[in-house]
């Protein structure tokens, strides 16, 4: 599956805007992503392993929080995971 990396996090993902990961669930995909990019782990997860509150995850166009299985949801090869952090620029 493809994980879309938002601009603020690209420096920690080798500058890439999309990364291909093989995984069966969302959780597995995130673990695989942060294992290969450890700097990303700190930015995405709290020390207790929870996704930071100012980051949202979307499986295709659905917010993962509202999926019945949340981050245990199964993913297919054609699915995309979008990491959407809050941004505030406007000036």
């Amino acid at each position, binding site marked *: 599956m493809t994980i879309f990396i938002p*601009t603020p996090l690209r420096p920690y993902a080798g500058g890439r805007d999309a990364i291909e990961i093989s995984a069966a669930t969302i959780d597995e995909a995130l673990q695989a992503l942060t294992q290969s990019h450890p700097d990303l782990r700190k930015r995405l997860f709290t020390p207790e392993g929870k996704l930071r509150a100012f980051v949202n995850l979307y499986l295709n166009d659905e917010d993962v929080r509202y999926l019945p299985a949340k981050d245990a949801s199964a993913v297919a090869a054609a699915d995309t995971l979008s990491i959407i952090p809050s941004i505030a620029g406007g000036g």
Partner: protein
Amino acid sequence: MTTTIAEPTALPELSTDDLFRYSRHLILPEVGMEGQQKLKAARVLCVGTGGLGSPLTLYLAAAGIGTLGLVDFDVVDASNLQRQIIHSTKDIGRKKLDSAAEKLTALNPAINIVKHDVKLSSANALDIVKDYDIVADGTDNFPTRYLVNDACVLLGKPNAYGSIFRFEGQASVFATEAGPCYRCLYPEPPPPGLVPSCAEGGVLGILPGLVGVIQATEVIKLILGKGETLIGRLLLVDALNMRFRELKLRKNPECPVCGDHPSVTGLIDYQQFCGIVPEPTPPSSQEPVVKNGIPQLTVKELKRRIDAGEDAYIIDVREPYEYKIAHIGGKLIPQNEVPNRLAEIDRDREVIVQCKSGGRSQRIAEFLKQAGYPRVVNLAGGILAWSEEIDPSVPKY
């Protein structure tokens, strides 16, 4: 889904000038006479007349919004003109509010411009927002975004939201009754300093142009009650790859502001909410100011030390391209590399951490202190303060 704002009791008549000026609207079935009258009756508050506010307010004025409220407390500087196109070179040094009002009146003298010459805060937001039908958020920091959101939810005013970062933008419409609010999407702000501002991170000048006009479009659709708005939708704009994506936004039933059992029923301290510790009032004595345990070194004091031949060990934590533009002889270790390059930073000397304006260097100074460095200070105001107060030949950027 379409949604409309509350209809005014009687729609204002269009003058002969109006009929000619808005003829291209009048012949559109989606607008027509009645639509144009609705635009004339509408009252829209634009928070911010900068990057987003520039195109937003210009297009709303062009469209004939009857009352345009403007909120801005900033002053025009040259670095704004790369993207804040409502201001001109001759406006440098002038209040943005006055500059914007002048251009909007020149474009459309018939509309009513209301200037709110204040910094929007919990003390004044409800009072200001209550007189408008719709708010367009063109601000540039997290505390104000949460403030605008909460004020809109509490008062029942839709919020046409847009935000930008480097070359990426987001747009949506928050705070409608059936739709989500900003807190449904982001219950908590990021810790201060994690997401750079436009001044620190840079921004492609055209980006607020794209996103600001999307916001203006949504405002107009809300007023006309036509088309499908961005309620419940998050539009993502990637200007670099010119890709537009859309994600579904849901109203969170447990949202503390707009949910079924709201716990936030009044405006709060948003600086505190965003983890921003207030600056200590500078003492009148010569005592050094200390922020979060880090003494703040003034550029004047640094200059004195250099001239007196005293130790001035400067670690510059900016990016290489910034160092190329201007530097004051510090050792360059970009902020993200500091944790891996501690061996290169002397523990025996007092470390002066320096960046562009003092923000990044403060955070790195705190990190070094935690890493056990006994003497660390932050160069308050950064290289910009050095250029301003000590050596104007050092380029500002």
